């Protein structure tokens, strides 16, 4: 009995040590990626190519999801607000929810599952098929040539995707509340305009999405580079990318929100 308890505690200890150790490896890798980003900046066509894969190809899921989330927000917001006779404020509700929270967060979650998983799988498979080793043998640093361009492409695309998500959401809310339900168009837009502050709302949302972009892509490239070079290893790494980045996005969002909006309004 005592033995079992001791081995249980040992297990917890081992796992804790392992996680801290892995976090250390990931941090070192992250710094390495930053240090070796010179090639990506000098040869920006490498980043542009990846921007297409991570950014442009993620657009469709972001646009469609944004539209539907905005429509649902409009519908639910209208239902609640009309009870208090303030349905004209639905534009404000839709815009603030999107710009401050849902835009950056949901776009980042979608980005993690669409682009993050693809980055991990691609780098992991390149490692499994010895493409990274071959590159090293050709005196080309795989971190500078493969990892860094993907990292920067993800970091650049994330804020744009979040902005796109918010724009589509606001449009979706407009479709449902103004066109279908019949809320006054003038009040939808003018209330939104007066309530949404550039500095507090839009800029803070933008900063959030930048943080999420760095977090998601850093996790994705690390998991791919660190994946055991087998089919099982790559699939595990892909799953870990989605799970870890989702948790990190939500945790980071809470911390950032606490800093940004505490005591505002």
């Amino acid at each position, binding site marked *: 009995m005592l033995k079992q308890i001791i081995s249980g505690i040992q297990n917890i200890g081992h796992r804790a040590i392992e996680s801290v150790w892995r976090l250390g490896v990931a941090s070192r890798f992250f710094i390495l990626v930053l240090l070796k980003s010179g090639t990506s900046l000098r040869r920006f066509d490498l980043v542009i190519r990846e921007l297409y894969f991570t950014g442009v190809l993620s657009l469709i899921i972001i646009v469609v999801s944004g539209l539907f989330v905005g429509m649902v927000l409009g519908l639910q917001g209208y239902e609640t607000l009309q009870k208090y006779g303030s349905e004209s404020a639905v534009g404000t509700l839709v815009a603030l929810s999107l710009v401050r929270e849902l835009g950056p967060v949901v776009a980042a979650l979608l980005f993690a599952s669409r682009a993050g998983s693809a980055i991990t799988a691609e780098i992991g498979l*390149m490692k499994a098929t010895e*493409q990274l080793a*071959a*590159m090293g*043998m*050709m*005196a*080309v640093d795989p971190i500078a*040539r493969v990892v860094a361009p993907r990292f920067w492409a993800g970091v650049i695309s994330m804020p744009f995707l979040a902005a796109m998500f918010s724009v589509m959401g606001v449009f979706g809310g407009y479709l449902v509340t103004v066109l279908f339900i019949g809320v006054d168009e003038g009040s939808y837009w003018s209330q939104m305009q007066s309530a949404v502050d550039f500095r507090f709302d839009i800029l803070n949302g933008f900063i959030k999405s930048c943080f999420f972009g760095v977090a998601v892509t850093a996790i994705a490239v690390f998991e791919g580079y660190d994946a055991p070079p087998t089919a099982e290893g790559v699939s595990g790494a892909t799953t870990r990318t989605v799970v870890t980045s989702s948790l990190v996005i939500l945790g980071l969002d809470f911390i950032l929100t606490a800093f940004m909006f505490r005591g505002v309004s």
Partner: protein
Amino acid sequence: MASETLIEVNDLNFSYPARAILNGINMTMRRGQVIAVMGGSGSGKTTLLRLISGAIQPTSGYVKFAGEVVHELDRDALFKLRRKMGMLFQFGALFTDLSVFDNVAFQMREHTNLPESMIRDLVLMKLHAVGLRGGHQLMPNELSGGMARRVALARSIALDPMLIMYDEPFTGLDPISLSVIGNLIRRLTDSLGMTSIVVTHDVHESLKIVDYVYFIADGVIAAEGTPKEVRESIAPFVHQFIHGEEDGPVPFHYPAQAYRKDLNLEDIVA
């Protein structure tokens, strides 16, 4: 020129904390030679290639490549040295997102400032040497195993290296592709005046093309010699390896306790 030493391996040791992999390896490889390194799976052959390319550091001893001790070089010098080396991986390791042409052009674009028109000519010449000039627009997923390895071969000779290392180049090939690859290794080595190290356990194909053979077993060189010497060797290990005998110095059975004991038959008198 042909007798100039390119690689000198001197009393090379390599071990992981729990296990010794290589133990006191000595080799000399000259320019223009094709050298086979043979041995069973897990005997340390690939480790030897990694030591020569500087991917790992020896525990003691050294590898000298073109007069430079590999493990004493810093990262920049090592990368500079690696431009003089090529490596053919077991399954080619072509970049799957690039076409055959771009794969061969990869190193030229990364390491030289050659104009695109010259790169085009060079790439087509390299592809012509392996017989795949007509397939330069194909993607790696459209190639057979043998073709992929030929493209990889063209890619590894892109910058005219002094040395090419082949990690199991014959694995999983049909007999025609097998002799195509074998002959290419020999021909390219001769025409480019480089050195080739072929890590393999394909005895028959490699003995046809190589100048010298090293056998590695349990981390030491068990035997060495020209193909003729090796074929005539009476050393038990070499004999077992060349003729693919099931039992010999390399036992069929993994070490175990007595068979009768394992089956609990000890007490029963036969």
